[in-house]
């Protein structure tokens, strides 16, 4: 009906939180934000989230079009439907932002994250770590006699699951890239 895609039924609230029975459920959304690759643009986006009290679960940013001077920021956030709409509208009015896509509601999308795991151990644990890595299709990218570095790619849930399994086997460190996401199908 209107130019604004505003979800019906989202209840209002204020920063003063005068509604004790606030019942809206918190949703997790993945936003793809195409921005002008200018100095300060990431600070603007992050400042918006911290200044207005929104959550960031994961954030990745990199230049995606050198000639067009464009970067893509992928943000995983959570909030009530009304907060999610606010976040998109607030992002949309940043001068350096070209486009905001909500991959969670605009059809289906694929999400991937890459992580590196450092696991140290000897004996059975070491063998078990390699066996599990094989099941998760993780690659060994560095090894010593007492340690491995595994590289794993997948959804954040898959990486979480791998981390849980590695923890008792001598997990030392994790480095995660954050989520990269694209909508499925043709543009």
């Amino acid at each position, binding site marked *: *009906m*209107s*130019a*604004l895609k*505003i979800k019906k039924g*989202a*209840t*209002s*609230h*204020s920063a*003063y939180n*005068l*509604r004790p029975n606030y019942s809206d459920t918190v949703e997790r959304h993945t936003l793809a934000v195409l921005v*002008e690759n200018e*100095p*300060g643009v990431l*600070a*603007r986006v992050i*400042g918006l989230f911290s*200044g207005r009290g929104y959550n960031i679960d994961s954030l990745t940013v990199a230049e995606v079009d050198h000639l067009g001077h464009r970067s893509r920021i992928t943000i995983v956030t959570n909030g009530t439907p*009304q907060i999610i*709409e*606010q976040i998109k*509208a*607030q992002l*949309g*009015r940043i*001068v*350096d932002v*070209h486009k905001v896509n909500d991959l969670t509601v605009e059809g289906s999308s694929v999400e991937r994250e890459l992580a590196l795991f450092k696991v140290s151990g000897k004996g059975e644990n070491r063998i078990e770590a390699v066996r599990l890595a094989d099941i998760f299709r993780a690659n060994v990218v560095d090894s010593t006699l007492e340690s491995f570095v595994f590289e794993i790619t997948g959804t954040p849930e898959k990486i979480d699951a791998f981390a849980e399994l590695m923890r008792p086997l001598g997990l030392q460190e994790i480095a995660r890239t954050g989520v990269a996401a694209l909508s499925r199908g043709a543009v």
Partner: protein
Amino acid sequence: MTKAMTGAKMVVQALIDQGVEVVFGYPGGAVLPIYDEIFQQNSITHVLVRHEQGAVHAAEGYARSTGKPGVALVTSGPGATNAVTGLTDALLDSIPLIVLTGQVPTFMIGSDAFQEADTVGITRPCTKHNWLIKETDKLAATLHEAFHVATSGRPGPVLIDIPKDVQFATGTYTEAKQVETHYNPQVKGDIDAITELVKAMETAKRPVFYTGGGVINSGPQASQLLRELVAATNFPITSTLMGLGCYPASGDNWLGMLGMHGLYEANMAMHDCDLMINIGARFDDRITGRLDAFSPGSKKAHIDIDASSINKVIHVDIPILGDVAHVLEDLLNVWKSRGRKTNQEGLSNWWDQINDWRAVKCLDFTQEGKIIKPQYALQRLEELTKKHDRYITTEVGQHQMWAAQYLGFEDPNRWMTSGGLGTMGYGFPASIGVQMAHPDALVINVAGEASWLMNMQELGTAMQFNLPVKQFILNNERLGMVRQWQQLLHGERYSSSWSESLPDFVKLAEAFGAKGIQCHDPDTLDDAIMEMITHDGPVLFDCLVEKHENCFPMIPSGKAHNEMLMGDASTDGAISGAGEALV
């Protein structure tokens, strides 16, 4: 044809090309090359303020009273940090400003150099956009883009940080028409949504227009269309503090201002309406009061150019994203083409109800005895100045609310006040900016003595530039609004809300070479006001008023629109529960 020139020259050239006539500023080490160029030209008048905060507020006053962007020029470091309050004020009230700051040379950035501050970092959350220029070749294009960004869409302040070596270096000047921008906010509203609103208007029994500063920002055409729409539909209209003047106070359908200190009839109409048409307002917490009791039975439409204002605090049924003037034009056309229908019977009953509320006469007060009531002072000021070509600015506090209640505004751009940020110290420098734009007009700053002292140094500016601004100070020797809240909420413990050791305002005026007038007697008030108006020069008018007057009506924090406190009400326990935590 390409033109080579220094960065400093580009700044002045771009300002001239953008039609800038006045710049408010204060020099310093990092902007000396620009000041050198200003010295060597005659197109732009530079107004030397006495504090950078004053420069930005003056630019706001200039902008708000002309519809054109205001320009301020300040140095690096403390110059930039002093501008922050003005920038934030302009951001919250959507005032288009271009603020130019000097910066240490590019090769010294990050070294904690003398008068270095991370200006773009500090001002990122308090500007609509900002830029740090590292190459002189990009300076002119950025300056032109800055004017575009400040004035397009929802207006706001922008800042350009210009390192000193960029000002000295030579580059190629880019003309405004060569600049490409991707920033082009939508101005036309969705016609289906507009039609849906028209349908709601055709059947509404109890409609109300709730207008705001967006009407004024949209330009004189928007106010004109709004008047046409109100006259054609006979719907009642109220406005926020920021929107006063978009519909004439003398108009038949005018309910007065709404909100925390709004008129009874305006707030009651908002509470009981069945169709609320928000035009360029933003459901600010001063307006809505208690959210879960805000206009419970109404269908709500919202016309706003900023998508993030829609559904931010109040869920609306008919959102219309677009510029007020564009949307109102379409709205009128659709309404006319569908046969100019309204619900006559419903409207007639609605006006009967509204007239009952009006009969309460919520602004009535009694002036008796030998002490001037602040309301009386403003009533007399209104009576004696309303026929003049008049512009009003205010500071922040009780006097501001009384001014909004007791002064009438017939046209847009005549009322300059700090609404969103509530900046004490705004009004005096703003009046200087207004007077620069309208040298022959009567410019009055309605002030409280405490607010006025916050930027009193600008009396030097007013004297230097022969600006006959009238400072109408309602002096109650109190921080009146703070005192009122302490009375209502903090058991009458008046913590630090006295203005002790006040200056003698008449002598203070005279120390600057201005005229000072003091008045404490209601019987001589008219003559004193006339003396102020007729004096050709800045006047400091010290109006000694009743010290403990409270500002009513008042919707206490945490209450609904129909739970207003009136002038003679008991105020014990007026604010309680969740309301205590609010501001």
